[in-house]
Structure formats: C-alpha cells, structure tokens
C-alpha cells in the first residue's frame, strides 16, 4: 500500500515537472539585421568635413576640455571605424575647407557649399554635423540605506559620492557630394558615469564613442543587433 502511494507520488511529481517545463516559455536570442540608414552601394568615396564644435564656448571655462581635440579625435575615430568595417574610401577634406556657418540649421541648407566640397574632394558623399562633449562633476551627497550592526535596524545616511559624467551628443549631416543635397540628419547621444571625480576626459570620450559605434556605422552599412524573445514548448 505504502509502496503504491510512493510510486503514485513519483509519477505525479514527474508529470508536474514535465508540465511545468513545457508550460513556461523560454527566452531565446536572435540576431536581427539593421538596414543601413543610407542606401549606398558600399564602395563610395566619403569625405569627412569639419564638424561644428558646440563645446567650444565652454572650453575656456573647463580646463579639462582644453586637453581634448574633439574634432581631431572624432575624425580619427570615424575614419578608422569606416575603413576597418566598411569598403568605403574615406578622405578628409583639405585643411583650407572652412564651414560657412556655425549654425547647424544653416549648415544643413548650404547646398552649394557641400556640392563644392564634393567636387573638390571628388566624393559622392560628404559628412559633417556638430559635436558636443561635456564633462560634468556629479559628485555630491546621496542617501544610502545601511543596517546597524548594533541593533540590526535599517537607517538612512548621507554619503559623499564622487562621480563624473561624460555626455557626447553628435548630430550627423550627410550630403550628396554631387548635388550638395542633404541626404540624412541624425542624432546620437550617449551618457556615461564613472565613480571617480578626476576621471580622465579622453577615456570618457572614447567610452561614449565606442558605445555609439554600432549606431554610427549603421548610418552607412547594415549592422545587426541581439534581441530576446520568448518561445513556448507546447
């Protein structure tokens, strides 16, 4: 009698386990393609023109920004990534090419200027836009929960936390090098925070850039991204 009960219990347990396993969905990972935002052939000649530096006015106030050659670093990063991960031919505009305006809206409308840059560099596509990089001191007092080792109760206390924030905002303007017509305007933004007050600004800048890398490249070429979905067993 006892033996039969035990066998029945085991059968029920087995059925419950099997039913539970079948009913609960499972998370699976997929790689989803991201179409390039610009329908290019993939072997065009792309000219990298200067970008408007939005942080220029703040440079005088923030000593740490003076150490960062934003234009140079961004151009170097973009050129390197495009050359490494695409088949485009990347050229830099000559040093004497100066932007006709420091206003982004007007820059986007300067069709004749962009056509002339395209002709000068013999490029089918010209890239410009604006760059904004900010280093923010986010140190301050924060409320923290703590459990007293004496009475075991939970209290709240104010602690001084040293943090630095790095904000990078890129507006991309892409022009047709033949007609000067604007093909695309897009914005990429990233914010990183480190737990140190004197965090290195160049390191922060590259952390921002590497996290935006996929999005930036996706403007020119197809990329893919990982996604999670649920599937059922029954």
């Amino acid at each position, binding site marked *: 009698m006892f033996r039969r009960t035990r066998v029945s219990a085991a059968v029920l347990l087995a059925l419950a386990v099997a039913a539970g396993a079948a009913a609960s969905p499972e998370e699976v990972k997929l790689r989803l393609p991201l179409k390039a935002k610009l329908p*290019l052939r993939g072997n065009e000649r792309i000219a990298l023109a200067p970008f408007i530096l939005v942080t220029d006015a703040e440079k005088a106030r923030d000593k740490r920004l003076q150490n960062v050659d934003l234009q140079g670093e961004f151009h170097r990063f973009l050129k390197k990534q495009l050359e490494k991960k695409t088949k485009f031919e990347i050229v830099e505009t000559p040093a004497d090419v100066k932007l006709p305006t420091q206003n982004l809206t007007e820059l986007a409308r300067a069709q004749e200027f962009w056509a002339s840059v395209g002709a000068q560099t013999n490029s089918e596509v010209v890239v410009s836009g604006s760059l904004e990089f900010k280093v923010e001191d986010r140190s301050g007092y924060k409320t923290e929960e703590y459990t007293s080792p004496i009475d075991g109760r939970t209290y709240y206390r104010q602690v001084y936390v040293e943090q630095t924030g790095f904000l990078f905002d890129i507006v991309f303007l892409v022009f047709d090098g033949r007609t000067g017509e604007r093909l695309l305007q897009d914005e990429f933004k990233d914010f990183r925070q480190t737990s140190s007050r004197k965090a290195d600004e160049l390191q922060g800048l590259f952390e921002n850039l590497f996290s935006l890398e996929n999005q930036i490249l996706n403007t020119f070429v197809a990329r893919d991204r990982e996604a999670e*979905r649920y599937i*059922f067993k029954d």
Partner: protein
Amino acid sequence: MNRSRTWILTFLLVAGGCTSYNHPERAETQMKFGTDVAKKGLWREAAFRYEQAITKAPDNAHAHNNLAVALEANGDFARALAEYKKALELDPNNNYIRRNYARFAEFYTSYTKTTGKAAGVP
C-alpha cells in the same frame, strides 16, 4: 531496491516527457521539436515545425507566437508581424506574447523607417 525503481521511473517519465518526438502527427510534438531546434539556432527548421503545428492546431496562440519569432529570426518581418497579430488575437492577455510583440514592433518600426535617399546610386 523499491526506492531506486521509483527514481528510475521518475527519471524516465521526466526524460520521456522532455525529449520524445513520437507522434509527429500531433501539434505538441512539432512544437517541442521546433523549440528544440530553435534553441540551437536552426530557425528555418523551427519555422517549418511551427507551421506544421499550426496546420494541426490553427488556434494555438503559442504556435503562432513561435512561428512569428522564427520568421523574425529568418528576416521575414512582414509575415512575423501577421503571426504576432494572430497570436495576440487568439490569446490577448498573454504577457509573453505581448512582450514579444512590443519588442518586435519597436524593432520593425525603426527597420521600415525610410531615411535619406541614395547618393550616387543610379
């Protein structure tokens, strides 16, 4: 002796319930097989199995959801959208299907968004 027999029986039942592909004529068998191959990344085979499951049980919301995921993985987004909609129509309160659909909708919107026009492309 009896105890070990009980454990062996339990193991066989669990293992049998988890891996058996007997009765391919049943929708559940196709679903199970589809999910197992999907977890190995064989999404075309998985899609085929889920289609078979739907043929056998057209009102199974889970099968429509799974087929949508497999179609998504194969890049057939328009059909995936239709299958997600069908799955939600059959089981509108299923949170997992709703979550899948929301994630897919976010991706699909940005995927189909037309931006810019071709430069230098005839």
